[in-house]
């Protein structure tokens, strides 16, 4: 017998995140490191526990090893519970055969049994690729107040960016009247954040119907929600006001990290009332040597800094040797930047080694043609040889010989 839960959260974490290239070669997107000591999934998980939701199903499919290992029994997020807690849900074999999660809705469909165990009134669907702090309990209260069948969290985005998002037209009481998926000429700037609250009985009904529909792509945004809308179910938009960022691309991941250094950005990780929990290794405090020069940066435990660090985010146990320069960059755990190397406008993944005098990335000012400029990426475990150069926008996933 399982204890009844009012609300269960389902976290979609199976995506490959192919636009992150080498960063997601061996790990799923939600496991990508972010913000010096976190991984992307820490945000939705911490939001859940801070919102009082202690039953979370994490749907995994692509490269789950690292993610499974990271989540473990959920203890770092207080999700090791007597009843509920965090559950890793991978596709499994059934009597009628086995299939992968075909789409976001199908992933939930295949886990109807998991949800039914807790007999919830409501289910919250989250995705593992957004950075934001949100109180889901407020959204749930809104959902109840509106007697909605489905509530979609909505963010007002700048008009000139609106065409990149799935948009909603909303009337005065918050009811959604129309959807627009990445339109050329947006009529609304109210974007969906990919956070949904459903009344479980309704969602289950539509999941079953969607599964039976020939040709459906089994996706929440493309199939299930439009179908609910068509049938006149009560769809509402819950306005969210705060920092929210989709970190699905290299540029947005880079930006989202550096946002932490911008005091104007509304994402305070030092707020004790809404802490972001993470599974962090035992590392001593970091050390800044007498030769180092650190400005406007975020530095995690275990780092040894002897070089220059400017406007960058350094994860745990990064070593920066003398006369090395890191600016406008993200350096993930365990990476070594040797003497005289320059890392600029770049993301260097875990346990990479950048040998002496190598240069990674380029400053936009130094480009002849700005259109060719972009963030350079070095994959995990890669060794960049002495004096080698990694051009902007490059994605390096194997060792590069030295140029000296």
């Amino acid at each position, binding site marked *: 017998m399982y204890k009844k839960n009012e609300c269960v959260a389902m976290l979609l974490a199976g995506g490959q995140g192919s636009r992150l290239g080498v960063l997601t070669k061996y790990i799923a997107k939600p496991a990508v490191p972010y*913000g*010096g*000591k976190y991984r992307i999934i820490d945000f939705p998980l911490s939001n859940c526990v801070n919102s009082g939701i202690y039953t979370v199903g994490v749907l995994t499919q692509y490269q789950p090893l690292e993610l499974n290992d990271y989540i473990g029994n959920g*203890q*770092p997020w207080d999700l090791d519970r007597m009843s509920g807690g965090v559950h890793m849900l991978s596709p499994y074999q059934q009597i009628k055969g086995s299939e992968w999660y075909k789409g976001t809705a199908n992933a939930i469909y295949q886990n109807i049994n998991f949800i039914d165990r807790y007999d919830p009134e409501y289910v919250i669907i989250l995705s593992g690729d957004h950075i934001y702090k949100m109180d889901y309990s407020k959204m749930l209260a809104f959902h109840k107040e509106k007697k909605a069948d489905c509530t979609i969290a909505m963010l007002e985005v700048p008009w000139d960016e609106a065409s990149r998002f799935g948009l909603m037209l909303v009337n005065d009481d918050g009811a959604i009247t129309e959807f627009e998926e990445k339109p050329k000429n947006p009529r609304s700037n109210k974007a969906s954040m990919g956070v949904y609250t459903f009344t479980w009985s309704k969602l289950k009904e539509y999941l079953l119907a969607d599964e039976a529909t020939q040709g459906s792509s089994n996706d929440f945004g493309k199939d299930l929600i439009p179908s609910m809308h068509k049938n006149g179910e009560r769809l509402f938009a819950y306005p969210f006001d705060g920092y929210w960022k989709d970190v699905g691309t290299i540029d947005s991941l880079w930006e989202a990290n550096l946002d*932490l*250094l911008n005091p104007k950005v509304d994402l305070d*990780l*030092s707020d004790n009332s809404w*802490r*972001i*929990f*993470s599974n*962090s*290794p*035992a*590392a*001593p*405090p*970091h*050390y*800044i*040597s*007498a030769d*180092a020069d*650190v*400005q*406007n*940066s*975020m*530095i*995690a*435990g275990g780092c*040894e800094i002897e070089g220059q660090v400017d406007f960058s*985010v*350094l*994860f745990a146990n990064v070593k920066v040797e003398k006369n090395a320069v890191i600016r406008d960059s993200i350096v993930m755990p365990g990476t070594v930047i040797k003497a005289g190397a320059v890392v600029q406008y770049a993301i260097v993944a875990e346990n990479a080694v950048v040998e002496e005098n190598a240069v990674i990335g380029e400053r936009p000012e130094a480009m002849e043609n700005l259109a060719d400029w972009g963030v350079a990426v070095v994959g995990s475990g890669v060794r960049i040889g002495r004096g080698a150069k990694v051009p902007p926008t490059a994605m390096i996933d194997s060792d590069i010989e030295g140029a000296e």
Partner: protein
Amino acid sequence: MRANNVFGLVYSNSYDSALSELTNLRTMGSVPFGGRYRLIDFALSNMVNCGISTVGVITKSNYRSLMDHLGTGKPWDLSRKRAGMFILPPFLSAGSGGVYHNRIEALHGSLGFISRSNEEYVVICDSNVICNLDFDKLLDAHDQTGADITIAYKHGNAPKLNDMMTFTTDDSGRITAAALHQHGAIDVDYSLNIYVMRKALLERLINEAVGLSRNDFEQDIIRRNVDSLKIFGYKPQGVARTIDGLQSYYDISMELLNSVNRNALFTPERPIYTKLRDDMPAIYGLGSNVKNCLVADGCIIDGEVENCVLFRRVRIAKGAKVKNSIIMQDSFIGENTELNCVITDKSAVIKPGKTLSGAENFPVFVGKGIVI
């Protein structure tokens, strides 16, 4: 020797009075150290890193902060069904008077735990010794010499603590003579107060001593038995520094700014574990100037900091100049302050514009939560 046949005992109140500034409101074991640790983390981590999975923590007084820090023992992987961590507070029963006055009383009060444990051997540690030692080697040495008791020692100037034991050893390593000092001694082999022995021997020695109203562990259990028991010294590789007062606390903290010392204490092979706080990584503001510092998570630094140890969540405001200081967790150093050779306890506040200055051989101490 198999480490799963050994249990640990840690004194959390060892030499509290030597560091009265920091132990006024807490135990020696819960004194903050090295940016994010408490002193007891070192003894516990050394034990678990060699595979010991049963540890008793002997407490005497002021142990609220210690309980808060240790919790269920989870950070040291000591929250277990089989074995784990046991907190041993003073035991009031007929024949014993509650709060312990010395090591023998403390051990006697903990006899219930000691005799109940299934392990054959025991390692006993103090918490004022900051160390990262390979306890496996210590256990092996105990096995190989066939000693009844093995005591880890170090060569150098003995700490100025009560009953600090110094040894003379013969070629085999056996201790042939032991002396007790109160005011330190120069160039000697002094005890690190890390003992290995059979559990049965410990029980016998305690019961004997209590029966004869003897109450001095070093004098009555070790020194008195130098001839009758095979007591061996063991000189471990690795760091071991004993805190004997605020000055040595300051000096040993500052030694961490040297990479040789730091890397010896924080080796990746034997990590030092501590309670997690889920602070964000440290943020350095534009115009901050930090040189030769150890900085923990959660700090926000906008001022100038040189030769300092900053604990978790310390704020250094713009225009502040902090040098040669130890700033403990949650302290706030206001704008345009100047600090030199200062130790602030937790949550101290130095208001804007204030100046505090001590000397390297006389650091100024600012108590917990004090606002200046």
